[in-house]
């Protein structure tokens, strides 16, 4: 009986920890948005810039398609579908958690300590640090392109595939979010290595813009079983587009993105706890 009670209490503590975190995140984000609005012109320019940066990215793909009809067997609307889904997922994760790449800097300049003296979870405070609304630019660009591709795609929609689109966008954002958290945890160990996570986050979304048939089999295996980027959009998108996945996985795997996302978050959360505990015992 006592054990059950302890379990329940631990669970309740965990829940209230999450609730505190979300609340603190909201409070700090509001402050950053207000700070940003102190430089309105700059904000507008940066948002447009963020939109343009990602748009140029797609212009390069469009240029490719000015010479070819299909890349890796995928047409332009199909590639745009991949591009749009990963951009929206990555854009949302980047908007909400993108500033976690500043953990290393905060450890180096000592401002991490200030966060530890406040009555709120540190992860929430760091994640909200320097919150930049301009990152909506990427989400917007991805969303527009996704809309365009949906209008142009020639696929037989079923209720299941229709539902799969929003599910994959959210699950994808959660998977990218977990990568940001894991990257932040790694920075406790390697303060100057913020760029490593770019390989997985920015690199990941670049990878997922293209069809899996383009890449070597081993690379596809790696991003399916090691760093499960394939669950962001490849596997569910192949189902939507009515194509086989190059690894020949069973069909139900296409629907497991939410589960994979959950597992990623649990692991990333653990990594964060280990990282923070390490910081609190070494102070550097």
């Amino acid at each position, binding site marked *: 009986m006592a054990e059950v009670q302890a379990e329940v209490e631990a669970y309740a503590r965990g829940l209230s920890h999450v609730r*505190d975190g979300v609340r*603190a995140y909201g*409070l*700090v984000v509001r*402050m950053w948005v*207000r*700070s940003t609005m*102190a*430089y309105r012109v700059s904000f507008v320019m940066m948002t447009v810039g963020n939109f343009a940066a990602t748009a140029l990215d797609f212009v390069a793909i469009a240029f490719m398609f000015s010479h070819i009809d299909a890349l890796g067997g995928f047409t332009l609307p199909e590639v745009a579908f991949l591009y749009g889904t990963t951009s929206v997922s990555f854009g949302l994760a980047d908007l909400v958690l993108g500033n976690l790449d500043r953990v290393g800097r905060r450890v180096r300049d*000592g*401002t991490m*300590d*200030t966060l*530890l*003296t*406040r*009555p*709120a*979870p540190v992860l929430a405070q760091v994640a909200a640090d320097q919150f930049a609304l301009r990152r909506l630019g990427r989400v917007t660009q991805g969303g527009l392109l996704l809309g365009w591709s949906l209008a142009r795609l020639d696929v037989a929609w079923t209720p299941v595939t229709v539902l799969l689109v929003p599910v994959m966008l959210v699950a994808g954002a959660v998977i990218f979010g977990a990568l940001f958290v894991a990257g932040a945890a790694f920075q406790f160990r390697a303060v100057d290595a913020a760029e490593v996570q770019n390989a997985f986050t920015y690199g990941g979304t670049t990878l997922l813009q293209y069809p899996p048939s383009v890449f070597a089999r081993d690379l596809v295996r790696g991003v399916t079983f090691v760093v499960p980027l394939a669950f962001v959009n490849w596997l569910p998108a192949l189902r939507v587009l009515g194509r086989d996945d190059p690894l020949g996985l069973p069909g139900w795997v296409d629907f497991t993105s939410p589960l994979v996302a959950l597992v990623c978050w649990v692991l990333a959360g653990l990594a964060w706890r280990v990282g923070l*505990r390490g910081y*609190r*015992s*070494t*102070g*550097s």
Partner: protein
Amino acid sequence: MDDLIVLEGVEKVFDVRRRAGFLRRERHRVRAVDGIGFRVPRGEMVGYIGPNGAGKSTTIKMLTGILTPSAGRLRVAGIDPSRDRSRLARRIGVVFGQRTTLWWDLPLRDSYGLVRRMYRVPDARYRANLERCVELLDLGELLDVPVRQLSLGQRMRGDIAAALLHDPEVLYLDEPTIGLDVASKAKVREFLRDVNAERGMTVLLTTHDLTDIEQLCKRVMVIDHGRLVYDGGLDGLHAKGESERTLVVDLEREFPPITGVPGARVVRVEGPRQWLAFAATHSAAPVVAAVAERYPLVDLSVREPDIEQVIARMYAEG
């Protein structure tokens, strides 16, 4: 006795890795804090001093729950800081002198609004506290000014107020007067005396400025090489460290080292400028008079002993 801060045999050991070649690294252990124990009763204001790297800030970091101690027992307001960091945070206030927690681009008032929400300070309590801080720290006209436009002294006052809005029982101040002009220093000290007397707040203060300690604290603790080497009144510290003040004189031209001034000796000569050390318990007047009588004096100034010196001498004495 109601001891708000309790430390018993607290240690903090770091593993430091140092590059010893192109790829080879050496590991060795550093005892930043090496078995410290003390108690601070509620309402006391204590100076906690020591040279850089003595273990001062490591202690403060353990007391605020930032760092986990390697050994020993530590309680602040009955809470184990490293285990219950968030709960402790509501009951302590922290001011790091060189690191503002205020929001650079927003009016001062907005930073306080965030404190209110994050610490869940009840409305009435918040208004009363803010009003009191504004009055004592003279913040009235600054509340609606963006923080980036404040001077260093104004910002420090703003930071101290931010640390007090949630009624902390313990206040940690790390170099609260560093870089401030004389007027701002005086204002900050006066305020700290007031809140300490008025609310019975326990204050732990680290500083390089002995005047802070002289004017605020009856009790001083000195840490060096991770150990507490002194715990007592300020007078005792002066006596133990035989601290000295320095008279700096600019003469009309170069002279050999000044001689024949009772109680003072020349410690440095640089062209026409000479440094004379004399006991801190002595008055400067007779020394100045003795020099002026026999040498053509252009300018002079008196330097107060600083803590590093006092401690260095404590050690020289053994």
